[in-house]
C-alpha cells in the first residue's frame, strides 16, 4: 500500500503505534513520506531514513517478539503530533548490546512527529535508552540461564 493516505496527523501516528505493535513493516510506506527523516537515535546502525525505520522496527520485534505498545497520550496541533508510548515485552533477542535475558521489560518514550503531504515526514524521539540498557543488563546478570540459545 503506497497510496498517500487521507488520515489525520493523529491517525497517522496511531497507525505507527499499530506497526510497532504488529511488526507490519509493509505498512510503513503508507504512513511515512519517502523523504522522511528521523532524529531518534536508531537501535541499529545510523540510517535516519524510512528504510532505517523499518530495520529498527524489525530489530525491536526480533529482540522483543511479544512487545505490546500502548499509546498513553497523543495530542496534535496543526501538523505536529506528540506521542507518549509504553512498551512491555519479553527480552528474547540481543538489544542495545545486551544478550537476551528472558525477562519481562517495560519501557516508555516520547516522540514528536511532523506531517506533510498526508504522511509523516519527521520524527524526533526521546527515550531513556540508558535506563532500558540498565534494566536489560540487570536482568541478564540476574538470570542468564533464562536466555534462549538462538
Amino acid at each position: 500500500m503506497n497510496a498517500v493516505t487521507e488520515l489525520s496527523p493523529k491517525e497517522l501516528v496511531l497507525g505507527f503505534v499499530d506497526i510497532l505493535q504488529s511488526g507490519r513493516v509493509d505498512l510503513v510506506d503508507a504512513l511515512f513520506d519517502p523523504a522522511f527523516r528521523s532524529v531518534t537515535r536508531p537501535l541499529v546502525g545510523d540510517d535516519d531514513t524510512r528504510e532505517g525505520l523499518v530495520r529498527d522496527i524489525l530489530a525491536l520485534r526480533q529482540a522483543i517478539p511479544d512487545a505490546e505498545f500502548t499509546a498513553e497520550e497523543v495530542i496534535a496541533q496543526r501538523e505536529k503530533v506528540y506521542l507518549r508510548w509504553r512498551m512491555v515485552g519479553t527480552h528474547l533477542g540481543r538489544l542495545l548490546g545486551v544478550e537476551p535475558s528472558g525477562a519481562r521489560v517495560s519501557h516508555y518514550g516520547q516522540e514528536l512527529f511532523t506531517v506533510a503531504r498526508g504522511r509523516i515526514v519527521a520524527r524526533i524521539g526521546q527515550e531513556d535508552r540508558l535506563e532500558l540498557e540498565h534494566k536489560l543488563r540487570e536482568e541478564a546478570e540476574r538470570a542468564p540461564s533464562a536466555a534462549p540459545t538462538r
Partner: protein
Amino acid sequence: MQELTEKEATNREVVRRMFEVFSTGDLAVIDEIVDPNLLSHNPHPGTTNNREGLKQQISFLRATFPDARFTEEDVVVEDDKVFLRWSMEATDRGGYMGRAPTGQSIKHQGQEFLRLKDGRIVEHHGEESNLEFLDKLGARSEDGSPGVSARPH
C-alpha cells in the same frame, strides 16, 4: 491555520513562563503557576516528584550550568495539555551531580509533557537524552552506568 482557544493560549503562556524560570532562576514564578501537588512522573535524580522537586531541579541546574541558555524548539498545545521540546547550551561550571566541574560546553535537549488545570501545571512527564548527556560530560562509566551519585548537591 488552527488557532488556539483562549484556554489553550493561556496554558501555552503558563508553560512558556515555567520554561523561562530555567533561564532566570526566579522560583517565585513556580509557586505561582505550578500546583503544590504537582505529580512529576520523571523527577530529576535526587529530587522529589512534586513542586518542591521541580524547584530543586531548577536550582541544581542553575548551580551546575549558570550560563545555561534554553531555547523552545517545538510546542504542541491541545486543550489542557502542552508538549514542549527544548534545547540548552551551557557550560559545566558547578559540577554535575557531585562531580568536579569540567568547564565543558555542551548542547543538550529534552521533551516535556505537561497537563494543566485552572491555569496551573498539575502533571509532568519529562524525558531527556540522558545517555548522550552523560557521554558529553564524560560522566558515564565504561559499564554504561551513570557513574555519578544519584543525588545532586
